[in-house]
């Protein structure tokens, strides 16, 4: 059984390594922003400086590859602030591992995006 887990673990590591190699600068930048708690497409645009035509399709691709997951804001919260609910994005566990290896690959990535202020 231990061997089974070891093999699976190696597969996961291999997947992460492959994903990190395939990751473009743009995708790495977006993932980094998401890992720093920027949650909305528009926020990501502002913080990365990337155009909307790049950010939104990239978010879709990352979601398809299961590095990101999206959900809707609670309706009650939006109504309370008299605004429509927005779709927000969150980085997944696999996405976090990928962004970690991408940061090792592109060290400047860590300095490009500031931490989100609460």
């Amino acid at each position, binding site marked *: 059984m231990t061997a089974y887990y070891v093999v699976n673990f190696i597969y996961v590591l291999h997947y992460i390594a492959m994903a990190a190699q395939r990751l473009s600068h743009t995708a790495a930048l977006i993932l980094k922003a998401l890992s720093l708690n920027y949650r909305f497409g528009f926020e990501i645009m502002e913080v990365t400086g990337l155009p909307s035509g790049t950010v939104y399709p990239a978010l*879709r691709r990352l979601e398809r590859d299961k590095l990101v997951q999206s959900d809707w804001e609670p309706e009650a919260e939006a109504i309370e602030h008299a605004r*429509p609910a927005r779709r927000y994005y969150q980085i997944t566990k696999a996405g976090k591992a990928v962004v970690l290896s991408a940061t090792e690959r592109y060290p400047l990535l860590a300095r490009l995006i500031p931490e989100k202020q609460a």
Partner: protein
Amino acid sequence: MTSSLPSPLPVLDRTLLYFACKLVPLAERSDWLRCWQAELWHRHHLRSSELRSNAIDLYPGLVRDALWLCAESIRMAFAGTASLCLGLLTIVLVLAGMPLFAFSGSTHTLFGLLPSNAGRFLCEATLVTLVSFATGSRTIEHESPAALVSRFRAQFFLAAKLALVLIIAFLLSLDMTLPFHTAHPFIAEIIQPQFFVFIALLGLRWNFQDQDNRCKHCLRELASPSRVGRPSWNFLDSNSTELLCKDGHGLLSVPEIETSWRRSSHWIAS
């Protein structure tokens, strides 16, 4: 269209949303529309005054997002299907015929060239097909036999691929030998069948493998290969790779090594 928003969007935004949402697949349209209405609304009602009322920079994102969803739905619908495979083979066939067309100069010469080679093609193709079927085809055990229509469709697909692969191989072999056919006709006559046999054998081998790795019901390529069992248990338990049909029609279990109790792949229909 903007009824769920606290205040309506400008006419330009609504017009763009109306046309762009036509590109989005029906199943995802309402979600996409809701998402972009919210994005545009927030863009117009930002607190920072310098960015307020400037939603134009979101327009490329909106259109590209709709286009991406449209392209993705087409990709998902056609990826790995039999029709895509036949379509691609037809494109390769046309590409393989192009050098021949360029060399012969006109369609008239080309159509004159093909009948003169038809007899040779039929002879070579028959031999290669017989050898390939004798050595390359594998049997797949079916837990429950597929419907007659599915079996007929699978056989038709195999035959169509076979014909296309053989014609492509023949055209490629002619492409390679025709340039020096006038200078060294004897050498060209000898080399051409060898090229053909080599390309056709490779092509037919691919054809059988491709056929094995397709769903027996919908002929879509099987995906998500997963290892089942352990190599050390070869003679005790299943040690195979399982491939799934994306549409859930069944799974194919391919044994890692041939055993007396498990000689061939096993198709288990859902």
